[in-house]
């Protein structure tokens, strides 16, 4: 009790600042002590991976603020982009391939939303199932390869992931743009306010007359759309898409970015700013560990510990409410 009181007083308003401070400290330490961290090549890698993580974090944030979660976001990210590349390789025109890829992502998002909102399956289970379904279906029926490369004819869209504007990599600009749009959406539009209302108290939002079910579908569609964008940015940046990423720890990194930044899993709290600071910290940490040649398994240990610590701190700062918590929600 004492502990909770103290940490609450210290952190409740400042979690964002604390995380930002740690990120900056870490960045400075790595720059000084790690050879090659500050090099142009590495910074480019850093920025690119941070951008992808951050963009996916924005999509995840829409769900988490509404007291949901999207475990299928990485599967949609990888498989929709992989299918787009595969179609392009098979001779489908680039615009059509992109459209079909997006339709795959959209379908997954809509089904997620319908399952959660209308069938009333807890988001955790609906999206867990969807992650497996999207990966399995795409590998079985759409994309026979593990790694799909970008066709030579697709250089027209290579700028998305690989281009620069005034020396700034386009992925980070896209992250900034999506973050800005996401922020504006959450703060200044009615659907955005409804997402907070649903995350705070679903029953109250429903009784107030908020369109709760359409809003949940909208959340899932937005998340899937953002996943597709992130997928295309990755694909054009590294000229390929590795479908194995679905089975990697990436989904935990995305959740980590959101929770660490200070968006409570109990819903209704936080915003895009939290995603940005969370992204910075995790991006810098992961990149530093890779340069230090920390074993992949040990990296997972560290990541797991940070995720658990972030969730524990979250549950101290934003305790779950017995009254409004629903069985099975995250």
């Amino acid at each position: 009790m004492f502990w909770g009181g103290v940490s609450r007083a210290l952190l409740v308003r400042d979690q964002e600042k604390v995380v930002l401070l740690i990120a900056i400290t870490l960045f400075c330490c790595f720059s000084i002590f790690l050879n090659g961290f500050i090099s142009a090549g590495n910074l480019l890698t850093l920025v690119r991976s941070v951008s992808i993580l951050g963009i996916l974090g924005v999509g995840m944030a829409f769900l988490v603020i509404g007291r949901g979660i999207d475990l299928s976001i990485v599967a949609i990210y990888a498989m929709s982009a992989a299918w787009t590349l595969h179609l392009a390789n098979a001779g489908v025109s680039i615009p059509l391939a992109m459209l079909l890829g997006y339709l795959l992502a959209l379908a997954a998002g809509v089904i997620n939303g319908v399952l959660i909102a209308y069938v009333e399956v807890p988001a955790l289970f609906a999206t867990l199932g969807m992650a497996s379904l999207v990966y399995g279906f795409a590998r079985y029926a759409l994309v026979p390869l593990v790694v799909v490369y970008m066709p030579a004819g697709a250089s027209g869209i290579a700028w998305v992931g690989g281009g620069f504007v005034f020396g700034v990599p386009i992925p980070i600009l896209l992250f900034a743009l999506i973050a800005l749009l996401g922020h504006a959406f959450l703060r200044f539009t009615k659907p955005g306010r409804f997402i907070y209302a649903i995350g705070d108290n679903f029953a109250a939002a429903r009784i107030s007359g908020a369109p709760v079910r359409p809003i949940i579908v909208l959340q899932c569609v937005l998340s899937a759309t953002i996943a597709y964008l992130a997928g295309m940015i990755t694909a054009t940046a590294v000229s390929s898409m590795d479908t194995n990423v679905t089975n990697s720890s990436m989904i935990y990194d995305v959740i980590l970015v959101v929770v660490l930044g200070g968006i409570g899993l109990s819903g209704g709290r936080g915003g895009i700013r939290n995603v940005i600071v969370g992204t910075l910290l995790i991006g810098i940490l992961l990149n530093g560990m890779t340069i230090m040649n920390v074993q992949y398994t040990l990296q997972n240990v560290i990541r797991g510990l940070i995720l658990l610590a972030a969730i524990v701190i979250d549950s101290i700062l934003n305790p779950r409410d017995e009254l409004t918590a629903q069985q099975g929600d995250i």
Partner: protein
Amino acid sequence: MTVPVTPLLEMKKVAKEYRGVAALKDIDFDLRRGEVHAILGENGAGKSTLVKILSGAVPPSAGEIHLEGRRVQFAGPAQARRHGIAMVYQETSLVPALTVAQNLYLGDEKFFNRLRGTYIEAQQLLQSLNFPVDPTATVQSLGTAKRQMVEIARAVRLKAKIIIFDEPTATLTSEEKHHLFLLIDRLREDQVSIIFISHALEEALEISDRITILRDGLHVITGDAKAFSRDTIVRHMVGRSLTHELYGRAADERAARLPREKVLSVQNLSMQNVVRNTSFSIFAGQVTGIFGLVGSGRTETAKIIAGVAKRDFFHGGDVRLDGSAVRYRTPRQAVGDGVVYVTEDRKGEGFFETMSVAENIYIGQISSRQSPGIATSMRTMRALATSWTKKLNVKALNSDARVIELSGGNQQKVVIAKSLVQKPRLIIFDEPTRGVDVGAIAEIHQLIGALADDGLAVIVISSYLPEILSLSDRILVSRQGRIVAELSPDEATSATVMFAAVY
């Protein structure tokens, strides 16, 4: 002939601070063996804090507790229980998935636990208390009243010397209340001491031997129950006389408002076995009070009308708004047509606790069809907040204050404001003053009257008779899922209304 009484329990100069804010200041309190002692006070007066200290749930910041002459300190509720102090909670603390018997013996099971033996023992215990509860039933299948019986039985089984009841009657029907009071009498004869917290003053007057009144964390007065009247209690509670303001409006003081056009008619509405073939009409420009005991289907009927009830359970019937049939599947459709429901469960489904007063009210606005477009407007939000907090006299530090930090009465006002911005034509108040402090009750009652004067169709659902009698221009009585009687204020008295509700 007075025997000097040594108190069973004594609290000396007990104080409690929460983060520097004093919730209790230097309270002296004593409890005699075999007495029923009511603790009364407005919300936030410190009643709950006092009993939490007694039941070991929170430690006092200062002061001493003496039990049977010896000083005691409780490290937790378990230790208080070992000292013979048991608490019967408002929200019950039973395990829903276990049976009644298993709950009664929870934590006390023998190593080789024979279920049959437990059932037989539990049956005997329940019978000795005259509780009609099946020990093999799971707790989740029981209603609130029976759950409370199980809690009481558990306290009795643990041979508690002191049993604390926190708002025991809030969810009971009058029949069940009667049973509870009989039981309290029996416990008193067995020399068990009882602390009784309630908002219902009549009950406190009826059942208790002594009464202690708290106000703003201070001890105001303790005395024999016989020395108090409803009026003196209220005066001590609020420091002024409010009874008249609250319930003084007798039928002869103000003529009942006349009905204008018929807004709603309900024909043969049914849902599971909670609402059974009920029919009634509601008119604009007057307050229709629906009285009924808990479980009589009032809330469920209201929830069907306002689209809140899930459709899966709907069994048929006809709801007509202005003569055309409507069947709302979601509250959104109802809100769109100007039918709003103000819930009895503020925290569970009323307000948004992470949001400010202004944001809460604004959610009501943007959920209705009052505001077209997709963008939100800070200016509209502020303007709404300013005008409505003023209109309803919401006392918050500022409109950025979070709703969770307000008192029950102010929270209720915010929930009401959130519905009123939707410009309803029919507004249903479900237990509008439950858990609301006395001062705010008067204001909410005035508001309800003003809404009817403005031509709205107003329904007030309440299980508190004086509230129904003083507010309504027309009284419907609900029993077993059906409206069984309609009374005008002239013919309605406590007796006639209660008679219709029970028999």
